[in-house]
């Protein structure tokens, strides 16, 4: 039975449950004339039956799928003859992979492994049958139990509403679950990495070369910082000045054109910026460098940083725009009343008042920049150079994460696991930047009302 058959069976079951719930409720009061004697409308009885099928089925399907694999592996290990088991305390992962792959090798495989593979397949098939059986049987039982409870005084609506409330809360809690999932998956694999490579070697080592198992991440951090810095040098002045111009000077007509144009910049997928940086900007910078006698790497930090900067302009400008608009009009009027020009008002009154919000938006832009992947994957290099020269090729945290995980993966090797350690650093760094940004905005906000 495939998953599709199961889903169809569940759907049929759900429809039957709904229909029989409605019928039972109608029948419980004798005739339709007495329908008012029901506490809840028949639909609610049907809905309760429907939830009786769907809710347990979803929980069982996800729950059982999560444990299915580890149970299967346990059962498999129990069947492996003692002689084939790895030494005490060693991982059985390799053996399990060999068993699993034996079928693909066909005749060339070790007959003992081939034999175990047949056993493995029957274990998997049995477990799946059990899983599907449970997913169909338990919801059916739950629905049955509800069915026999239906009578005119049964408070079906209240039950339905409390179930709905629980479903709503579960959906909201998914945000927590996602965060926990991220933290645990990244942390768990990082710990495996740090068991092989000491934490201090990773954080403070200045040489990064996975092929020779050296994982000093400082060049990556420096490269990320360099490219982000270039991006911020482009985006902060341009974004801020655009925001000021749009909110203080622009006529409604200019605003109506320029604001959406800036938003379009935010809507363009990063891979498009990546293509543009790699195929247009980088060669242009390189040939320009050659004409003035500079040697520019074809994967220079400058190209990636410039394009990334343009990508971030809308973030800076729209966030700054909000903060500038939030400065009360009375402050502007006061400054104009004292005879200051518009630019003086902006520089000496509005800018200081909006500063915490602007700093917050710059920090958020920085967190965007360090987490940006596609532009740097396409336009920045792979060589981990420790340099501050924007004309040379540098690599970043995200580039190395992609390089480590794209292609053949072996999960026991630090070459792959390093991606998770880098991901952990990235996650913590962006989280910190966001927390600081929020803190700055809250702590230093001027209260005018």
């Amino acid at each position, binding site marked *: 039975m495939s998953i599709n058959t199961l889903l169809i069976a569940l759907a049929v079951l759900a429809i039957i449950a709904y229909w029989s719930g409605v019928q039972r409720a109608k029948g419980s009061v004798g005739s339709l004339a007495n329908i008012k004697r029901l506490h809840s409308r028949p639909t609610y009885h049907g809905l309760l039956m429907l939830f009786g099928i769907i809710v347990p089925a979803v929980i069982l399907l996800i729950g059982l799928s999560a444990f299915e*694999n580890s149970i299967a592996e346990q059962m498999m290990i129990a069947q492996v003859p003692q002689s084939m088991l790895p030494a005490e305390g060693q991982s059985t992962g390799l053996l399990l992979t060999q068993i699993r792959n034996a079928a693909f090798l066909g005749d060339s495989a070790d007959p003992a492994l081939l034999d175990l593979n047949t056993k493995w397949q029957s274990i998997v098939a049995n477990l799946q049958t059990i899983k599907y059986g449970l997913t169909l049987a338990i919801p059916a039982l739950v629905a049955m139990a509800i069915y026999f409870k239906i009578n005119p005084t049964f408070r079906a609506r209240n039950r339905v509403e409390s179930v709905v409330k629980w479903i709503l809360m579960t959906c909201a809690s998914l945000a927590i679950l996602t965060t926990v999932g991220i933290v645990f998956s990244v942390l768990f694999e990082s710990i495996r990495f740090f068991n092989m490579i000491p934490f201090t070697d990773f954080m403070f080592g200045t040489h990064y070369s996975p092929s020779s198992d050296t994982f000093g991440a400082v060049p990556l951090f420096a490269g990320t910082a360099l490219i982000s810095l270039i991006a911020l040098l482009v985006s902060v002045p341009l974004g801020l000045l655009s925001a*000021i111009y749009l909110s203080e000077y622009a006529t409604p007509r200019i605003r109506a054109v320029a604001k959406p144009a800036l938003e379009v910049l935010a*809507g363009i997928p990063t*891979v498009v910026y990546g293509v543009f940086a790699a195929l247009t900007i980088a060669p242009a910078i390189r040939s320009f460098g050659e004409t003035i006698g500079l040697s520019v790497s074809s994967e220079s930090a400058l190209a990636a940083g410039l394009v990334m900067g343009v990508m971030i302009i809308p973030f800076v400008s729209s966030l700054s725009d909000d903060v500038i608009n939030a400065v009360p009009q009375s402050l502007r009027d006061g400054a104009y009343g004292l005879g200051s020009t518009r630019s003086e008002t902006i520089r000496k009154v509005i800018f200081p008042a909006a500063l915490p919000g602007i700093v917050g938006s710059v920090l958020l832009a920085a967190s965007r920049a360090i987490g940006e992947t596609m532009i740097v994957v396409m336009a920045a290099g792979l060589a981990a150079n420790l340099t501050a020269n924007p004309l040379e090729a540098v690599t970043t945290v995200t580039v190395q994460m992609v390089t480590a995980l794209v292609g053949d993966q072996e999960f026991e090797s630090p070459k792959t696991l390093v991606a998770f350690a880098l*991901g952990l650093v990235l*996650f913590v760094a962006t989280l910190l930047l966001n927390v600081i940004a929020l803190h700055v905005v809250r702590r230093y906000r001027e209260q005018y009302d």
Partner: protein
Amino acid sequence: MNKHTTEIVKQGLQKRYNAERRFRAYGMFAILISVSFLAVLLTSVIGNSVPAFQESVIELEVDLSQDNLGLSANPTAEELFNGSYENAVKAASYALFDISGRKEKRAIRDLISSGAWYSVRDAVVADPSLLGKPQKLWVLASDNADLYMKGIVTSDMPETARRLSDQQVQWLDELISSNRIQKQFAYTFFTSGDSREPETAGILAALKGSLYTLLVTILLSAPIGVMAAIYLEEFAPKNRLTDIIEVNINNLAAVPSIVFGLLGLAVFLNFFEMPRSAPVVGGVVLSLMTLPTVIIASRAAIKAVPPSIRDAALGIGASQIQTTFHHVLPLAMPGILTGTIIGMAQALGETAPLLMIGMVAFIADVPQSITDPAAALPVQIYLWADSPERGFSYKTSAAIVVLLTFLILMNAAAVMLRKKFERRW
């Protein structure tokens, strides 16, 4: 004294006015730079994409007799599929000109796409009545011949720079003058999957992969996001848990997308053992990523429904759930849809998490279900951009144009929804 102050002010006035003008110019300059960058980006991409929307085809007289294809007199469907079309096409291409040498044969073979025989096979399988005699068929020209047809490679260029020999150029000119080669709309680009050869590579597989991914994303993130928003706006008590949920949603919105890819790899691929490179995993990961966007937009829409609606419903005896689902939700729907569409547009353009879960493999087959291995449109762009062949650079731009078209359509739909249904209370 009074006059004195005015004097001082007047002295500095010119300077201050100049500063004012300068400041204003800076602002305009900043906007101009941003907008002109956008213009340069769009024109360069669109300009570069034009050649990819046309393809060149060459007319060959292919001998489709059963003997030549190695078929029996009345072949079964399977035999028909396995005929030796490749040799037939090769022989037909040698017959284009009067040649004999091995080198010349090879040179002429290089003018025809190496995948040309697929189209001949498909034509025969679709219509077996073609069998038995020589047929004139239009087949794809090779990448190099195609570039010559489009004028990107010209005969003025030095022979070494154009990857076409003088002999080949002369042949192409002959074909052009006898109308046996022509340009047509690039059907192949829209009807085939990825390929190693630029001329036979298309975006259908990637487009379908993106479509399936987006389908999973919308089926997951729209209901979950809306329900989470309803809970937080209408039911959540003011307590610790609610605070934690809110902080989490805001933080998730700022987590780099590549980290979601790590989550997908560790949890869905390694723990749940879902299939690699499949749209279903991509969809789940992208839905987790877009969830904060959907929740935040939906909350704003729900919040905008005035409390008087709720009070009225509660006043005539509706329960809280009834009030929410019968009255608040329908009124908030346009706003929720707008937010969802914007979230989906974000998901459609997202690449990095898909790289992590293996949707970056070379996949030529068009996916048939959400568990088949597939590429996605942005990933296809990334892959083509990395390919050295010249033809792929145009295909990259063309794929970007297709992607941007979809994004523009989605955003336009969002704007229209907002314009049409937006209500001021």
